[in-house]
Structures are given as C-alpha cells and as structure tokens.
C-alpha cells in the first residue's frame, strides 16, 4: 500500500526546498488553473506538505468528483484525465493530444475550466472536480448547455463535445450574458476538427438565455 495524502486543514508552511520540489511536479498542472495564484492553489490542495516525498509507487488519495468523494490509488505521475478515465471509468472526458493543446479533456476544477491532461491528479486533491457526467441532474435532466448543444446540433463526431460543453459551462457560471466574442474566447482552447463552431456559438448563447 502506498502513502496516503489527504486534504490539509491547516495551511502548510512554505519552505524553499519543498516549494521548488512542488513546482517541478505541479507547476504545469497548476498553471492550467486559470486566474489563481500558484502558491494559493498548492496550499489549497494540500500539496505543500513539509519535506514530503511521494512516489514513484502508488499513493492513496481521495478526489471530490461530481459531488462525491472517491478513493483511488494512483502513481503520482497520473494525470487528472487518466485518473478520471482509467480509474473512475468516467470516459466522457476525452484525450485528443495529451499536452493541453486541444481541450478535449477539459473539466472544471474548483469551478475553473482546466485541461485535465495537464493537471496531475494529486493537484486536484481537495478541490471540487466536475466532469461531463456530473452535469445531468439526479432526475436525468440535462443541463441547459447540453440541451442547447443537441437543439442547435453543436456537434458532429462528438469527441470534442464534452470538453466544449465544460468550457461553455465554466463561462456561463461566471458570465450570465456573454457576447459572441466572449463565447469564442471561452472555447478557444477547445478544438473541434469537424468545424461545428457556428452552431456551438448559437447553442451557448441560447443556453445563456435558458439559464436566466
């Protein structure tokens, strides 16, 4: 059995040594969290524990996915995308490039859209994670963004759709009345090779109206 990492309640102390160590392991992932300071994120996630080294073997962690706490044992190198897909079997999240360029793996981490292939699962400890599977209500009612994507045919092959919807949701959670330019900007990290963008823009505008 591996080590166990849990969310820390008390704020960890930041030493130069473990700060640098943490950066090497987590800077990419944390950088993917838009708009929040890195140190804050590290502290919040409980990564900055004093002189603690984990890996390369598996460690037991708990993630908060779609409102539920799930326990899993993973190697520290496992990305959030792989953890979600391979360990939790939530395969709605896709991987298109595995290096943060296509956005197919977009999930919401603490409410922000992140590329889960560029986020280590360990970086997500203690933060709410929302995937495409979490958008439906318990009564199987679709989220307005999902409804609008179907209604406007904002998809073709569907492989980018989960990520596209998550980026759109992140936008609408923050901005109730986005302009087309703001919508374009919000999904600009999500590549759709089929070229469904015009319908996506319409769907997100329509979803915004429905959510009012």
């Amino acid at each position, binding site marked *: 059995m591996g080590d166990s990492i849990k969310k820390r309640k008390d704020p960890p102390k930041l030493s130069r040594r473990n700060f640098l160590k943490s950066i090497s392991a987590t800077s990419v992932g944390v950088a993917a969290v838009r708009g929040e300071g890195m140190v804050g994120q590290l502290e919040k996630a409980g990564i900055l524990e004093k002189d603690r080294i984990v890996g390369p073997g598996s460690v037991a962690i708990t993630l908060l996915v779609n409102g539920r706490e799930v326990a899993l044992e993973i*190697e520290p*190198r496992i990305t959030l995308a792989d953890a979600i*897909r391979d360990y939790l*079997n*939530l*395969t*709605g*999240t*896709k*991987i*298109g*490039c*595995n*290096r943060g*360029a*296509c956005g*197919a793996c977009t999930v919401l981490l603490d409410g922000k859209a992140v590329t889960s292939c560029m986020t280590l699962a360990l970086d997500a400890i203690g933060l709410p994670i929302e*995937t*495409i*599977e979490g*958008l*439906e209500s318990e009564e199987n009612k*679709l989220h307005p963004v*999902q409804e609008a*994507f*179907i*209604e*406007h*045919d904002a*998809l*073709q*092959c*569907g*492989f*980018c*759709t*989960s990520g596209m*919807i998550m980026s759109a949701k992140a936008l609408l959670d923050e901005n109730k009345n986005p302009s087309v330019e703001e*919508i*374009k*900007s919000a*999904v*600009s990290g*999500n*590549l*759709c*090779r*089929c*070229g*469904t*963008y*015009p*319908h*996506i*823009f319409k769907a997100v505008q329509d979803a915004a109206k429905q959510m009012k």
Partner: protein
Amino acid sequence: MSKKEKVFIGIDKDLKEFTVEVPDTDPKPWDGKSDLKHIGKRIPRIDGKFKTTGRAKYTYDIKLPGMLYGKIVRSQYPAAMVTKIDTTRAGKAPGVRTIVNLYDELPFAVRFAGQEIIALAAETAHQADAAARLVAITYEKKPFVVDLDKAMKKDAPAVFDDIKQADMQGSKNIREPRIHPKDSDGKTIDAVLAKADEVVEEVYRTQVQTHSSMETHGVVASWNEDRLTVWASTQGTFRVRDQVAEYFKIPKSKVRVITKFMGGGFGSKLKADVYTMLAVKLAKKANAPVRLMLDRKEEHLATGNRPDSQQTVTIGAKKDGKITAIKLKSFGTPGVGGGAGTSGPVKNTYDVENIYTWEADVYTNAGPAAPFRAPGMPQGAFALEQAVDEMAYKLGIDPLEIRIKNTLSDKVRQAEYPIGAEKFGWSKRPKQAAAEKGVIKRGMGVANSIWYYIYNSGTHVTITVNDDGSVQLRSGVQDIGGGIVTPMAMVVAEELGLTPADIELTIGETVFGWAPSSGGSQTTAGVTPAVRIAAYHARQRILEIAAKEMETDMQALTLESGKVFAKNDQSKQMSWTQVCEKIPQGEFSVTGERQPDYYETERYKISGVQFADVEVDTETGKVSVKRIFAVHDCGRVMDRLTTENQINGGIIQGISYALYENRIFDRNTGLMVNPDLEYYKIAGAMEIPVIETHIVDLNLAQSSTGAIGIGEPATVPTAAAVANAVYHAIGVRIRELPMTPARILTALGKL
C-alpha cells in the same frame, strides 16, 4: 418486375413530369411534389443525448477485462535499413506481456520517420510506453529526401530503389504520370492555346495537410477461440472486416467489427492499417484483448495526409471570356503512398472542349497520403479557380461573369450563382483589385466547388416492428459524425407515420446488414434508400394487418400520424399501437436493399459555389476571413440542420487549409517538426467567420429518397475563394498555401 411511376423532377420549384421505372418492391420515389413531414426539416440528431452527456462510447473508451495496452515502436529515421532489433530489455520490462514482429526477416528498409517496426503489449499504457523505449534498434542510415522540389531533382536519393519509375527529368522519385486524354502528348492543346486571345499560365503550390481527427486512429482487438472482435475507429466497418479476414486468413464470418461512435476520420480511417494488424497479432499472441490507440504524434506521421502539389495551370480564352483550353501539369508528394493527383476540378468544372492534364506523384521519405475530404479537389480548385480569376482580371471581366459564361451546361450551377451573388452582395464589390485605401484592405472572391455523385447499391437494412408498437432499425453502417442515424430514423418515421425519436437504431456492427464505407460523401445517398424500402415494406405489413382487423381492403387504408384510417372515411381508424398489438408472434422483420439508381441522372457531379469576404492587414500580413456565403446542392436534403452543420464544417476546414495548416519537415533530419496540435495550426473558435449557407433543392427521384452527399463539396472551393478575395483586397496574387502573414508580406514586397 418493375412498375412505371410518374414523378416531378427539377431544381427547387422548377419541375417537370418524368417517368421512372421502379422495381415492384420499391415505393414511388419522393419527388418535387412529395409533401413530407420530417424529411427536409431541421431535426436535432437523435443520438445527441449520448454525445453531450459523455455516455457515447468510442473505440477510445472500450475497456475489456484483462485488456492489454499496445504500443508500436517506429523508425526514428526517414530512410534506413534496420539491421538488428534487440528486445531483451523491453521483454523484461515491468508489465510487458508480448512482443510481435512486423517483418519476418532482417534487414528491412524503413522509408519514413514513424514507420512501424515492431509492437508490444503491456498491462498498462505507461508500461507499454516505457518498454517501447527499451527496444534497441540498429539502423544503417541512408540518404533521404522529404521535400517535393528536392525529390524531383536528378541527384535526389531514391525513396524506393526497387520500383520502376517514369525516370522523368532524371529523378528516380517521379512516378509514371496519369495523362488525360489518354496517350495524348499535349501538342493538340498547345496549338489551341497558341490561338487564344489571352493566356494565363501560373504555378500554384499547396501544402501537406494532416487529417488530425480528434479521436486518433486505433482499435481494440479481442479473440475468443477462433472468433475475432475488433472495435475500430473507422469509416468502414466492412472494409476493416474484409481486410483483417484476408490478412489473417480467417473467414469473414468469424470477424466482427464494431464502430458505435467514432471521433472523426475525413478519409484517413477508410481502411485497416498496419496498426490494426499489429493489434490483432498482439491479442492473438498474448491471448488477451489488446487496445492499440495511436498518439497525436503517430497520427501526424503515419496515418495519412493530403498530399502537397505544384501545379502549372495554363488557360486560354477568347476576348469575351469564353475559355478555349485548360492545361494542367501537376506534381505532388504522397510520401511513400499514392494519390497526389489534382486534375478533378480542371476536368469537371467548366464547359471547355480542350482539356489536357498531366499528373505525377513524387515519392518522398514521408508518411503515406490517404484520401482526405474530396481528394485532390481543394488543391486542384486552389489552382484552377485562381487561374480563372486571373483570366477574368486580365480580360476585364467580372470573376463571377466568367464563371457563369463557362458553365452554361450546368443548370444547377446556373441556379446557384444568382442566389449566392444576391445574398452575398457581390454587386457591391469594387471592380478593381486593391481599391481600398488604408492599412486594412477588404476583398471579395468567388470559387466553384466540384465533386461527384457517388453511391453504392447493396446497402441492406432490417426493420423490426414489435407488438408494443416499438420499431427497431439495424444496419452495419458507421456514423463518423455526419449524423447518418438521424436521416435513417427520419425516413422510417416518414414512411410509418411516427416521429424520428420513436425509432430505435442499432448501427456500427458488421453482423448487421452491409453498408458502404463513409467516404466520397456516399453514406446518405447509399443508405437512406435502403431504409425507405424497408420502411415501405413495414408499412405494407401494417396496412395488411389493419385491413384484416378492419375488414377492408388494404388499398383503402392509409397510415399517417400514428394511426391507420380509411382514405374515404377517417372515422374508421386504428391507432399504431392497436395495429401492432395484432402482429402475429409479436413481431415482424422486413429488409430493404439499395438498388441501382432508377435512371442515370445528368447529375454525375455535385456543384456548389462559395463567396468569401476577407480583410488583409497590409502591415502585419494577417488575413482574416470575415464572411463566407456558400450555395450547395445535395439532391434531396434529408436533415437540414445536420446538412448545414456539415457545410459549415467543410468551410472551416477549408479556411484552416487556406491560412494555417502545414506539415513542416526539417530538411536536415527528415523529421516533422510540428507533429502536435500547438504548432500544427488548425482554425479554432477565434478564426471562425460569419458563415451563411443556402441549399438549392434538387428533386431527381433517382432513388427512393433522392439523397446525394454534401460532406466533401463543402470544403473544395473555400481556400480558392479566400485566395481570390485576398487578391481582390491587395492586388497581389498569393499562389502558395497556406497564406501566412510572411507570404502576404513577401508578396507585398515588405519582407
């Protein structure tokens, strides 16, 4: 036996009566006077819920008990002999279960960086990746060439030394040319060109484009005794089945290929490939299911691409704009593959008596080309449609006018031009190029599309109606994103008086009836007629059962909006479910098969015209497409919503091709420098212009549904229309793709 049916055919509402001979087993084909409830309307795709909730399972998502992860070890060099492969360390690496060879004997040649050498399977994907790096391969490096121009030179290294070449210009890489008309030496056309009032002769170049589907190529292979199941991200379930059966010498009946959801293909996923066979081999040897999905880099290197081109177009015309001759000489590199021809537009777009085309593929040490959305056409249109534009400016004729004048025989095109011109606002365009003052200049351009009407007869579907009223439709066809399931359900609903959501579809398994590969824009044209014939048979059975219950003749009954009623007395009726309750044994099944077209239409080709409105920043060289207006035709439109989406997608891929995409090789190492999605640039949300579409409805009644495809025509003219608009904006021709800021600034003399 057949029957004669009177139908109304024509463009939009311009209809004429016509008689078609239809097999007795088929319904009267839908024609210009058919009043349809679902067909032609905007219907959201019926499987949208699966794709928007993450429930859709792609090949990428298949996970089987005990499944291993495969990894291919590929050549690091563009040209070499592999003299030794040492798998000792890899074989001992954690989790590795099996290793398979691709070639039985050493040494063997590798001809591009990324070529498959050996494969292994391990318990996790990480273990497989790690072990693959431990395979020690000894190479004897050889000279290579990755560049079209260099490959055509006399002293260029030969990519293949064992294949007979045309020996053109002394290069060993130029293959036997394809010449049209056959055996012509081109002297006749030169004589015609010599007599022309005006001649345009220019060289146009296009780049290599990779398909870059969101779901990479891959399969999951699983053996059960002597039976094999392959989940494949493919555009052709049956083709994969046939190839796998042939390669492993097993009966087709033992192979099942499954493609439930598929993350894009664009032509590169039409066949089984080396990775398919390696996965099947690994699964056999390891006696466990094997998942082998390629990564993004492998995708760029080895799974196909649109070849580049260097095309010399010569056009001769009279003073009044009548084109008298078009000559094309074209070279292109499909890497180590084939299919770099570009002559489609030259041969098919214009009413020109004298056409001569000469096309040769040129081998380079690069991954093989594969069909890519309208193979050869966007390249060909980029050259031809600019050359025609150049002729128009030279003669002082409106670029739209010269097109109208030279396509008079194409009635559909003639109907499309005025619609496009009016809705786009062509008349507001300044006559002169570079008419605008200021740094940012606006321009408008037009270009013709061209593609073929392709279908295969033989598609075979089954419909089952149950006594609880439910309806199932089964077909082996795969949905690659075009959304074929929705028209299929719409057709059944139309015929049975139900709604599309009432129809339960099961597709994407070769154990169901044969269906064509989704390539050449043939799926809708091939599949929907079979569905309608099956649905028509189901309708007959329902009417028969109802007639018995209602003690009347079935000819006196009709089936509409969920009920059967007497044509002359609507009070005599039974609901759909009431009739279904009476089905003997609780269910019946009927089949439908796509027959050859009822007659040969004039529409062997698909037309279409696109208008582009661009802005060019003459200081930064940046081209921004502001608006595209597209007019297309695809026979009878099935689902107007998904059709519009398909056209948008074609246009966006065309813009991407015009301005951004480019496979770049390092000439010194022969390696691709941008095998990813950050430096291989693809148009994204920020680059999308306003796109407006108009579909000219064609009523042909050539099949029971009259459908024709649209996937490919929509991408053919976009790059050319943008290029023509760029010329109109800045007054300088950009004859090379992609039209990057550097090329614009160079053309403007600023670099």
